[in-house]
């Protein structure tokens, strides 16, 4: 990726990371659409021999052989039995029956996680710079599980099974599938086994935002990653005939528009279809759009396909306008014709102009790449949001990372839009999604693993979460682009990842497999359900009182039932947590903040003194909650600090 290393503080702080030695021992497995091994991001110049612990392989198949792997891309496997059993044999004229990536997504995520540095990377000159993965010296192994018709759980399980056997250290999975209980969810089940072997599993939170309860991959042994923006934009202005200008974004490169205003038409007025405004395939009347710029409403079909539809109908350009569903979120695309995307407010103003002017005209002004955009990051509107629908007591997502307009490696067999008619070929592409933020965190987790090889997955996640930031340098809270207001822990979790701080968190909230078994007991899982997840017979201790609240998680979700208040009109919730010292000796003092006066927070003891490394100290937080209206949410924060390091935890209060 370009820009994200600087944005994350990696660019100028290379010496802070143990890049050359221990990180080269870290192996990151990526489950996705495969890999384009010819990408320069997989150049292995200067890398040491493959780690001796590696037991994986480079499988051969359509247009792919063992010689496609090297000291950077050390493994490549594909899993298609489940897919073929349902969909029939793979059509090798359309997709490779091998680890080769015919989609682009897998090459994008795998180069983001651990790609080597490539100078002069760009997409048509956009986002130009030196591209690199988060862990440039880590090794990458790809497991192709997603095909043209989707990703099937039998193949995903098989890939995770093999990745564990191959000895990966981090698993990056930018995929999800609805909201199932953990014992029914293959990703959650596979991740449990991986966690037990010391493998950190990082998954995308999903792109179903900004609706609440829209998260996937919420098991507490998974690191769940939401998406934020960078400080980079690709402005392309809409200039109307009435002299008004509106800002938009675009990655269009090609024939320029004539330097004059052009006729402008609303797609809904150039179609006989009831959904003509959406520029669906075959809905535009060529006689009405020929030679004109067309305004299409966002939604239903792919953004780039709308541009193709306008182009096919003879249109000269497109303005793609958001509706309420997307608000002000702008996602840049490499359209096939001159086009720009504008937010809802601008879109409404442009629609009003189109409806009121008898001879509307417009042009689009492309401005290239701009950096230093503020505020940044902001939470992407599409990033899935809490509360956690499976276990509301576990706050998810865990954190956010860059996931909007990310440049990374791309497949040579598909154009940047992914459309079959797009015959352009690019080495790098710019795309958006929590699929893009997940491998950022996976790569950063690999850096932390390299620096602290003995840390558990939970300790690494804790380091990433407790050092994440929630305010800009000016002290204002990170915003949510969906609302234009400060984001909450249901949007950003513990905050935006800060890898430099994560290297030295001071204290961590550690967890082991047995803790998660206790968690399953607290959920009242049957022995059979626990066995399905944990692969062993485990009987919950009938004499022990299990509580989800006591899972040693680095965040707090307090669910208050207003109908079950105590005699004083309050409910009391006690949460126990244990901190492990992973730094120098120090005395940590607690501080709490809260938006609401309806919950009183107290911590006992308020001071924790640590001497030795790995020393553990336990504390109890008591939340005393008064009644509030159902569906009220409020938020707070608990921090331990020794004056140098701060170990922060978000708190979410929900009156159910």
């Amino acid at each position, binding site marked *: 990726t370009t820009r994200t290393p600087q944005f994350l503080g990696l660019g100028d702080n290379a010496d802070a990371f143990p890049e050359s030695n221990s990180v080269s021992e870290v192996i990151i497995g990526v489950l996705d659409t495969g890999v384009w091994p010819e990408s320069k991001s997989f150049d292995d110049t200067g890398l040491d021999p493959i780690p001796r612990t590696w037991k994986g392989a480079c499988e051969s198949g359509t247009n792919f052989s063992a010689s496609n792997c090297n000291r950077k891309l050390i493994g490549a496997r594909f899993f298609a039995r489940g897919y073929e059993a349902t969909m029939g044999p793979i059509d090798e004229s359309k997709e490779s029956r091998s680890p080769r990536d015919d989609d682009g997504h897998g090459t994008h995520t795998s180069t983001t996680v651990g790609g080597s540095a490539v100078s002069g990377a760009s997409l048509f000159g956009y986002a130009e710079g030196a591209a690199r993965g988060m862990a440039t010296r880590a090794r990458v192994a790809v497991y192709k599980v997603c095909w043209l018709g989707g990703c*099937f759980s039998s193949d995903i399980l098989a890939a995770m099974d093999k990745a564990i*056997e191959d000895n990966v250290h981090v698993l990056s999975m930018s995929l999800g599938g609805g909201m199932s209980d953990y014992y029914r969810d293959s990703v959650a*089940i596979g991740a449990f086994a991986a966690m037990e072997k010391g493998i950190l599993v990082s998954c995308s939170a999903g792109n179903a935002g900004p609706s609440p309860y829209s998260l996937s991959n919420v098991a507490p042994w998974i690191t769940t990653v939401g998406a934020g923006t960078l400080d980079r934009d690709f402005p392309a202005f809409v200039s109307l005939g009435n002299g008004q200008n509106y800002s938009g974004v675009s990655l269009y490169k090609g024939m320029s528009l004539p330097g004059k205003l052009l006729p402008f038409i609303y797609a809904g007025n150039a179609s006989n279809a009831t959904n003509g405004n959406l520029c669906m395939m075959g809905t535009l009347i060529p006689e009405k759009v020929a030679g004109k710029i067309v305004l299409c409403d966002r939604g239903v079909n792919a953004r780039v396909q709308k541009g193709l539809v306008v182009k096919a109908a003879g249109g000269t350009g497109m303005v793609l306008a958001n509706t309420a569903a997307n608000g002000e979120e702008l996602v840049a695309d490499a359209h096939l014709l001159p086009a720009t995307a504008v937010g809802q407010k601008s879109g409404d103003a442009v629609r009003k102009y189109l409806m009121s002017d008898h001879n509307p005209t417009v042009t689009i002004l492309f401005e290239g790449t701009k950096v230093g955009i503020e505020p940044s990051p902001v939470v992407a509107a599409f990033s899935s949001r809490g509360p956690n629908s499976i276990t509301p007591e576990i706050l998810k997502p865990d954190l956010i990372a860059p996931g909007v307009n990310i440049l990374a490696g791309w497949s040579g067999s598909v154009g940047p839009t992914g459309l079959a008619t797009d015959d352009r070929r690019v080495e790098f592409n710019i795309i958006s999604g929590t699929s893009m933020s997940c491998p950022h965190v996976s790569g950063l987790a690999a850096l932390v693993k390299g620096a602290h090889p003995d840390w558990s997955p939970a300790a690494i996640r804790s380091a990433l979460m407790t050092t994440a930031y929630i305010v800009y340098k000016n002290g204002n809270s990170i915003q949510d682009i969906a609302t234009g207001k400060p984001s909450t822990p249901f949007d950003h979790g513990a905050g935006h990842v800060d890898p430099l701080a994560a290297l030295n968190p001071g204290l961590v909230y550690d967890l082991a497999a047995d803790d998660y078994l206790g968690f399953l007991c607290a959920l009242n899982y049957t022995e*059979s359900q626990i066995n399905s997840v944990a692969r062993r017979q485990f009987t919950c201790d009938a004499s022990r009182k299990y509580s989800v609240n006591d899972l040693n998680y680095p965040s707090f979700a307090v669910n208050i039932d207003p109908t079950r208040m105590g005699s004083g009109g309050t409910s009391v919730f006690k949460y126990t947590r244990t901190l492990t010292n992973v730094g120098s000796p120090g005395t940590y003092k607690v501080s709490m903040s809260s938006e609401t006066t309806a919950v009183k927070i107290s911590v006992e003891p308020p001071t924790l003194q640590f001497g030795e490394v790995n020393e553990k100290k336990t504390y109890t937080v008591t939340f005393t909650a008064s009644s509030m209206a159902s569906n009220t949410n409020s938020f707070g924060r608990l921090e331990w600090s020794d004056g140098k390091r701060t170990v922060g935890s978000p708190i979410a209060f929900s009156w159910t």
Partner: protein
Amino acid sequence: NGSKRTTYIVHMAKSQMPESFTHQSHWYDSSLKSVSGSAEMLYTYDNVIHGFSTRLTSEEARLLEVQPGILSVLPELKYELH
């Protein structure tokens, strides 16, 4: 359609494997054969679960579910890229 086969993931309780089987894969195979003469395994899993995936009719899945040592017979799910 009762004869239509779909993919299931079969979770088994390894602790309940009869001693007569020398390897878990033989036990899986025997369990599958007890409900279907034609179903074949897609994968056997060693690390993530104890079990296998296979194509079954809904009736075969129902029968397998009640065999000894079977924890669950879950229909395959489709996941999507984010």
